[in-house]
């Protein structure tokens, strides 16, 4: 299977590589704008408001206006800040988030880098963002930023573990770390998705509760890793103002913002690839043409985005110790239980 349609179209490898890099970048920007709009509009509809109504048709251009505003703003570096680190942090964070896109297959014909250890890579690179976060929090020379950064590190590091357990289980189930292969394994109807035990004999229904549990565990961990409510403690505005990006404004704040949204897409994509059939149509061969596959993939990722927004406007925020409790005492033990059950199933199959 050829992994990149761009390579097929363009002879020159350099230009092709450039285009391959630019496509996800453009995608991230468009995706972030749509996600921001969704956030604004869903929030306001839940709260019986109308939300932004004056920019474009029914306020659809609001995110664009916000980004333009952010870019126009004065770039402020506080006097007491550690300037090199302060300026580096947002870019590091964005770079880390963006690097994850290298192995995300939008469709079988578009995989920027077809490395075999894709799952491992995306997980490793995802943790790098924490450094940018700590850097920003520390270099701001602000106590609120520092508190936010510390909370953030504790949170992200703890929640990597349940997430890793969930990923490990799926790797066991599929026998591969290549995201394209994992996705390919789940082709067919939606009961072949790994959240429903993956393809297998009829008695796989025994493992379905455990895979569902793993899906839930991974979902909760992704919420925590992307700092979404109810785990938005690092930027809990009522306590520590804005957490690690208290001192950031303008362009650098926009970088943090985009990094966050890029990160959100990565975790959503992983969730979809591992549990929800990736780029496969849920209905067998129906609408499973090559041009529909990326659409399915993006639609599924947007469903996750909708879910997080829905949760955000429903729930209050947890406290730091309760967050840790949830990670180490609830998600991790149950993750292990599910992992053992899945392993047993694989051995017996």
């Amino acid at each position, binding site marked *: 299977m050829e992994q990149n349609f761009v390579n097929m179209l363009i002879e020159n490898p350099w230009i092709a590589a450039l285009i391959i890099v630019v496509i996800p970048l453009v995608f991230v920007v468009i995706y972030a704008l749509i996600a921001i709009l969704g956030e604004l509009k869903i929030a306001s509809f839940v709260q019986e408001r109308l939300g932004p109504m004056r920019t474009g048709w029914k306020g659809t251009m609001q995110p664009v206006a916000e980004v333009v505003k952010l870019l126009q703003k004065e770039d402020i570096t506080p006097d007491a800040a550690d300037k090199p680190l302060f300026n580096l942090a947002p870019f590091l964070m964005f770079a880390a988030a963006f690097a994850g896109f290298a192995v995300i297959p939008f469709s079988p014909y578009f995989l920027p880098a077809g490395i075999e250890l894709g799952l491992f890579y995306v997980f490793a690179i995802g943790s790098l963002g924490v450094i940018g976060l700590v850097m920003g929090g520390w270099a701001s020379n602000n106590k609120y930023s520092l508190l936010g950064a510390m909370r953030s590190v504790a949170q992200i590091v703890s929640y990597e573990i349940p997430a890793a357990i969930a990923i490990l289980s799926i790797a066991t189930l599929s026998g591969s770390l290549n995201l394209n292969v994992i996705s390919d394994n789940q082709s067919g109807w939606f009961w072949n998705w790994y959240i429903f035990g993956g393809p297998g004999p009829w008695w796989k229904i025994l493992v379905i509760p455990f895979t569902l549990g793993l899906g839930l565990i991974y979902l909760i961990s992704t919420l925590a890793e992307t700092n979404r409510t109810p785990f938005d403690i690092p930027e809990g505005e009522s306590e520590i103002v804005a957490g690690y990006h208290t001192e950031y404004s303008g362009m650098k704040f926009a970088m943090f913002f985009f990094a966050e949204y890029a990160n959100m897409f990565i975790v959503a994509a992983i969730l979809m690839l591992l549990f929800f059939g990736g780029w496969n149509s849920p209905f067998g061969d129906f609408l499973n043409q090559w041009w529909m596959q990326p659409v399915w993939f993006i639609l599924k990722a947007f469903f996750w985005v909708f879910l997080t927004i829905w*949760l955000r406007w429903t729930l209050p925020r947890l406290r730091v110790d309760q967050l840790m409790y949830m990670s180490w005492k609830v998600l991790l033990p149950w993750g292990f239980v599910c992992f053992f059950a899945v392993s047993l199933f694989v051995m017996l199959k």
Partner: protein
Amino acid sequence: MLNYFKNMWLGVYTVLVGLRLTLIHLFSRNVTVQYPDERYPIPPNARNRLYLDPELCDACLRCAKACPVNCISIESLRAVPGLTPPLKNGDKRNLWVTHYEIDFAKCCFCGLCTEPCPTNAINTTTEFEYSTTKREDLIYTFVKMSDEEKKEKEEQLAIYQAEQKKKKAAEAEAKAKAEAEAKTKAVNETKNDN
């Protein structure tokens, strides 16, 4: 251990209850009033910007005295009876308002000034959109007599006062005379009695 499971179940259950509620509200009617296009109905008795009808004001200073923040400043001049047109409601005008201004930057919109007004000259209106970029623009001058007019009125008043003074003096003289006459008369009478 039981508590552990109970907490977990409660956590999941209450989150689902909340999600159900927010989902219902996601599709319910929105209550936003899109302000400059649509407007919230303001009741007629709303206490917003004050309005003074200069034709009704008699400069009795009751509004200025009632104001808790002293935002009303009034200057007045005594009116000459006979030469002065009456108020709009037909009452006699005792004083000319030469200067009447309200500083809306100070005004606290309590409406206390409207209550003691004998002629309902000062009133609250429903107008609330009058923000300006300069603080001076918030000082509203309702009456400002030009210098010539003021001078004219002052002169009239001076003449009138002079006349009055004369009259008064004449009266006083007449009175004194009358009294003196009465006295002498009385003295005469007593004399006569004797």
